């Protein structure tokens, strides 16, 4: 059971490094596929999907907490969450 959990963990870590990033991508794709895609957007369908993903990437990296150098005493970790 422990080995199976470990293998599953390794498999998941192939695709998920930051849970927030993975969840936001999936929510955006689902939202797009279910709600936006049926709307008449003509040739803007693809670019809108891309713009959403690009914004998610930029915002996620902007918010990433710095794992190094370690915060000095009295300083919080900037950008967490």
């Amino acid at each position, binding site marked *: 059971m422990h080995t199976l959990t470990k293998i599953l963990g390794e498999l998941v870590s192939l695709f998920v490094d930051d849970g927030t990033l993975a969840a936001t991508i999936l929510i955006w794709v689902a939202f797009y596929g279910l709600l936006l895609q049926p709307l008449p957007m003509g040739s803007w369908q693809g670019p809108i*999907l891309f713009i959403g993903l690009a914004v998610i990437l930029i915002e996620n990296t*902007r918010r990433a907490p710095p794992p190094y150098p370690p915060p000095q005493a009295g300083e919080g970790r900037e950008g967490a969450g």
Partner: protein
Amino acid sequence: MIDWVHAGPSILAAFLASLVEFIEALTVVLAIGIVRGWRPALTGACLASGVLLALIVAFGPVLQAIPLNLVQLLVGALLLLFGMRWLRKAILRSAGVIPLHDEEAVFASETRSLRQSGPVAVSAWDATAIAASFKIVMLEGIEVVFIVVAIGATSGSLAPPAIGAGIALVAVVLLGVVLHRPLAVIPENALKFAVGVLLCAFGTFWTGEGIGIAWPGEDWSILALIAGFLVAAGLAVPICRARHIIPSPAK
């Protein structure tokens, strides 16, 4: 007959991604070979390669038998997650938020750890070395298998990504044999940046195809997506760097 215009991006993506993974595996296999002997290092690597080859043979045709739009949506979403993970890490490394991957440091650390893990076996069956070599080749190789199978399944042929991965394997093995040291001079983060961009572009394209988007210019949209992700990632680096500047303490 391979259509090189369409196969080119698949070969390039598989080549670059595989190159990064094989370089990481080579570093550890070299450390095992130098400290514990070449026979167990190569035995573990060959065993893992056999298992990985079996996975490609097993999963490649299975995915190609599933309806294309379902495969495109599923594999496209996974490729998108995979590519975004790589690109995020490459952006954070470029911005100095997380440290760069240092093959020399990994090599030194693996060598130290292997020397401390007990005496070298007198017989050829050095279980510690074989297991270590098997594990690293499996861990890095499974990512190569995913890329080859995913690109192959969605583009309709396993041949182009398999060719790309094969060229990368031969190149890394040859360099390893010639140099006998980790390939630290390869700009690994730049490679990861490029691979992340390519995988994100493929992932977005196929996810879009899977949910029924009609891409302008069809397959040529992949080139526009590559350019788009390159610009987005290029923008993210200075934004991220500016955000994470740690002010020097006031004197």
